[in-house]
């Protein structure tokens, strides 16, 4: 068994709204990511996947607040650390975070190389300019980015190039965990493919040790990550390998989600895509019992009362459902 790079235990974070209401967007989330592995997070908008990404950084600013739980990166617990400490010692070296609009984060009046200098000097001011430039040039070369990008201004780059540049800047210190929150959603498919190739290269070359990839595009997730976790209403409802999750989901919510996949392939027209009726619960006052009960077509009276934990299904899979794997498979077959 390989080394565990990221371990999250019972992480709970909340937003405090202007009217002083608490919204638990990430509720008791626990999972592990092994070295060299990538984990995808899927779910509807508002299910807390982006909040989870923010929370994992350990760098909280209002309205997001840390409540409880541990985030352990390579044996080092970063939860509850001083934000300044996190910024100096964790971000960049241990964890790198790429949001969806990362490409708009570059100051248009500075050259790309200046951002790299900033990142490195923020962690070690003693490194010489030449060393930084050498490192940057080497990194860009191995990642198939044109070298002259370093001396360009962000406005001179296309959207896809900008996103790739940002990714290489934020991983310049070879972080142990890369958190990518929809890094390619704002791009066209061709640029998206290049971004994915780059992330793939980063993993292959060992510049990043593990990755969490968040997107609502399931076909993309299937092609990028080893494992997939499905989130619903701030909780993880199921986790399994990408193949298992896409082709053989167990939890009724994952089942519904996977039923909505559309890809331009032979056979797509023969299968009717499914919808999950209803809307996710209000996280200001989440319902008792299973949070998916309201929308689940296999719901039982007990679902609305009993709180379920993530339970192992064997084969490395976990699911959060009252019904056993066999019962669910039986139910799916009868449809």
């Amino acid at each position, binding site marked *: 068994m390989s080394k565990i790079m990221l371990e999250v235990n019972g992480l709970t974070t909340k937003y405090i709204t202007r009217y002083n209401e608490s919204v638990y967007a990430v509720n008791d989330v626990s999972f592990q990511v092994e070295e060299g592995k990538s984990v995808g997070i899927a779910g*509807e908008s508002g299910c807390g996947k982006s909040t989870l990404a923010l929370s994992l950084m350990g760098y909280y600013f209002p309205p997001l607040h840390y409540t409880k739980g541990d985030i352990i990166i390579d044996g080092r617990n970063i939860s509850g650390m001083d934000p300044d400490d996190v910024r100096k010692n964790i971000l960049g070296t241990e964890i790198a975070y790429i949001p969806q609009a990362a490409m708009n984060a570059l100051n248009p009046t500075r050259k790309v190389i200046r951002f790299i200098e900033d990142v490195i000097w923020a962690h070690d001011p003693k490194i010489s300019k030449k060393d930084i430039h050498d490192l940057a040039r080497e990194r860009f070369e191995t990642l198939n980015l044109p070298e002259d990008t370093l001396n360009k201004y962000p406005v001179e780059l296309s959207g896809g190039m900008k996103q790739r540049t940002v990714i290489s800047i934020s991983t310049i210190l070879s972080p142990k965990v890369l958190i990518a929150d929809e890094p390619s959603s704002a791009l*066209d498919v061709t640029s998206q493919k290049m971004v994915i190739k780059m992330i793939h290269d980063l993993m292959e070359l060992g510049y990043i040790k593990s990755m969490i990839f968040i997107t609502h595009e399931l076909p*993309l997730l299937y092609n990028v990550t080893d494992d997939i976790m499905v989130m619903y209403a701030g909780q993880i409802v199921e986790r399994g390998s990408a*193949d298992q999750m896409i082709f053989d989901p167990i939890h009724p919510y994952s089942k519904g989600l996977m039923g909505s996949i559309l890809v*331009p392939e032979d056979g797509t*027209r023969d299968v009717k895509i499914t919808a*999950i009726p209803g*809307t996710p619960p209000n996280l200001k006052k989440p319902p008792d019992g299973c949070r998916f009960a309201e929308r689940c077509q296999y719901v039982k009276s007990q679902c609305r009362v009993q709180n379920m934990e993530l339970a192992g299904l064997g084969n490395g899979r976990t699911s959060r459902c009252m019904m056993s794997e066999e019962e669910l498979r039986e139910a799916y*077959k009868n*449809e």
Partner: protein
Amino acid sequence: MSEREICLSGTGVSKVFGFGNRKTVAVDNVDFNFYSGELVSIVGESGSGKTTLIKMLLGLTSVTEGEIQFLGKKRDIRTRSKKKEYWKDIQAIFQDPFSSYNIFSKIDSVLLDCIHMRGGRMLPKAKKIEMMEEACRFVNLKYAEMTNKYPFELSGGQMQRLMIARIFLLRPKILLADEPTSMIDACSRATILDMLLNLRNETGMTIIFITHDMGLAYYISDTVYIMERGKIVEFGSADEVILNPQADYTKRLLSDVPKIHEPWEFSKRNQTPPPQTPVEA
């Protein structure tokens, strides 16, 4: 083939913004024939001119060059009253449900406008409410819950369904749907698509569906047009275009879209082919 009737067609349609050095050609000399009752997809990436084309078809922007024929005759929308007549036959659903509503007026007014537009201004109030109830039922909303509400009190999916209810009341001959599902979650997408298909079955209207999602276009449409930088590079039946593309652009686009059964260039799954036993029945 012969009994298919062309309801909207265009020859040499172009749209140019600006002039001189700052000239940009958004739609470049495009020909198309949309047949009655058919579901056409126009697929293109951002900047391909598909939204401009839709605006021209709707008569919201002028056509720089070329001619659009509506029901076999040259389209004439030069006066306000003619435009109003035209809009009885051609309607649209827009991409972003959140910006499709005037947040200062109540939802009822949206549906009421449709009844008025269909000449129902003089109908008794009870009849109007009955019509609105029927429309809401069609899109699986409860009129009683919708009435007296402001748009921002609804979810994105509900808003988009209400847009379909609007089309249900208007019953135009042609519906232009500009990426109606791109802003809402995948789980509610199927509902919206089902409703559009039901609408077509019930009224026989032509639906022109704009999307950047190849999978979606393939799933839903009879005919697919592929647009690249203002030009139509390929069109034909969905199976022809998606499964057997001829144009280089279409081929590239298709190869770049991540897939699940077929291999994808930078996929992690390339080494291990997926089990060929999809659970979906």
